[in-house]
């Protein structure tokens, strides 16, 4: 056995279509052209960490539709899989989803394709280790910062688990919502570029998630949103959850790897507490926007 294999680590046996290391991202650098990145479905990332006794900032693996498979090297590990519902197996035997799972040394942990939702989160007691860039281990697919998407055969080191055992073995959890999903939308900074009729269209019509959606944005198909102002505007700072309308009128919802600035008007904003629904919406999912206003009860901030 090589010294490497005796250390606490996992080998990526099957990376799946897109599996990345994610944590809470790197907010605070947008003025340098660096986006926030981080786990798309933050509640699922946090829950998975909590189930294995990690702090919320510990890095998890974020899968995309096709799951992943990994092997425990050197030492047994405890993992939990949350987010998109998927079959979880250890050496071929079914184990629980959204619960702590013991994986003996050398055993194969398989996360199957997403049955509902898009992104499963694999937390491991201690957290996955990867180089920290600007305080975060997250892969930013837009800027290329952070570790590259995982490939078959990659070996990821794992930090020592915290001494304190998890507070709870089982936490009630709900699966990602089924189609159609309903997203609250607040008027955006450029809602005035569109007018009341377009706002009415946005909040009454039904949209569908396009195949081209990714960690950068959820792209939607449906009635085009007509504007009264110019097609493009001087670039301005953009936030997570901004609903931007490019020249073709089809809205684009900015997710964690969004560009820090954008040149199209933002008609609305999806509040942070609703975003996880969007991040788990698979292609073809139907999406409805429900008009909200800032007077609604203040929800907890996602941080």
């Amino acid at each position, binding site marked *: 056995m090589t010294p490497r294999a005796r250390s606490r680590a996992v080998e990526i046996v099957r990376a799946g279509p897109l599996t990345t290391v994610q944590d809470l991202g790197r*907010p*605070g*650098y*947008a*003025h*340098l*052209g*660096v986006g*926030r990145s981080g786990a798309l479905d933050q509640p699922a990332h946090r829950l998975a960490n909590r189930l294995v006794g990690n702090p919320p900032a510990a890095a998890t693996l974020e899968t995309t539709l096709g799951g992943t498979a990994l092997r425990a090297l050197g030492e047994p590990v405890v993992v939990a899989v949350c987010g998109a519902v998927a079959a979880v197996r250890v050496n071929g035997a079914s184990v629980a989803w959204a619960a702590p799972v013991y994986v003996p040394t050398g055993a194969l942990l398989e996360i199957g394709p997403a049955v509902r939702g898009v992104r499963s989160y694999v937390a491991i007691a201690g957290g996955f280790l990867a180089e920290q*860039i*600007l305080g975060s281990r997250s892969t930013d697919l837009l*800027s290329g*910062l952070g570790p590259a998407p995982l490939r078959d055969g990659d070996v990821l080191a794992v930090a020592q688990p915290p001494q304190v055992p998890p507070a709870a073995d089982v936490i009630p959890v709900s699966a990602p919502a089924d189609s159609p999903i309903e997203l609250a939308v*607040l*008027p*955006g*900074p450029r809602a005035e570029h569109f007018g009341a009729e377009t706002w009415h269209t946005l909040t009454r019509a039904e949209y569908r998630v396009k195949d081209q959606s990714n960690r950068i944005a959820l792209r939607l198909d449906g009635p085009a949103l007509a504007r009264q102002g110019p097609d493009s505007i*001087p*670039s*301005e*700072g*953009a*936030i997570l*959850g*901004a609903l931007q309308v490019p020249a073709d009128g089809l809205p684009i919802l900015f997710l964690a790897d969004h*560009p*820090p*600035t954008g040149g199209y008007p*933002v008609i609305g*904003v999806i*509040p*942070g507490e609703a975003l996880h629904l969007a991040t788990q919406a698979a292609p073809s999912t139907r999406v409805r926007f429900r008009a909200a206003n*800032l007077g609604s009860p*203040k*929800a907890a*901030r996602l941080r």
Partner: protein
Amino acid sequence: MRILRYGAHALLVECADPDEVAALRAELLRRREQGLLPAFDDLVPAERTVLIDGLDDPAPLAGEIAGWDLPDPAAAAGSLVRLDVRYDGPDLAEVARAWRMTPDEAAALHSGLEYRVAFCGFAPGFAYLTGLPPQYHLPRRPTPRTAVPAGSVAVAGPYTGVYPRLSPGGWHLIGTTGARLWDLSRSDPALLTPGTRVVFTPQSRG
């Protein structure tokens, strides 16, 4: 200034011009340093706006900003960075023609001005520098290049800038610098940050 709500935790402040953007950004930073502002995550200047994102409750700050007296933008200027440039870009001749001068004169003009980083974006470490007089503003190239080498010094619209890494790009390439615009081995990876003053120093073409 016009203050726009941007969701539950952000404000977008629309300014009259880039000078007001710089002044407002400087004032926000000064007040933050003095502990006069609520906590926030990001302060993002852009062409005509300043975004303040990650506020618990933007309402009080929105009310406050409107009453501020902003400093002279000259007082908001940051440190000076000198970038060595070889004026050997593939678009230099074309830019010189549009500016109605020779390539040498275009190089002398570009290197004779002092610029200021108005904002960053497009890619980590990509700074939009203002300071080029209006008569030298050119539209972007009709077809962007798919690969612009790192260190390319370019102009487009009211801006000049340097590509921090190999990327697509639609600006006119007039020169090359060996300066590392983005380097993660430095404690501040970005060489140019909003407010930084920049001068291009011409090197011989050898």
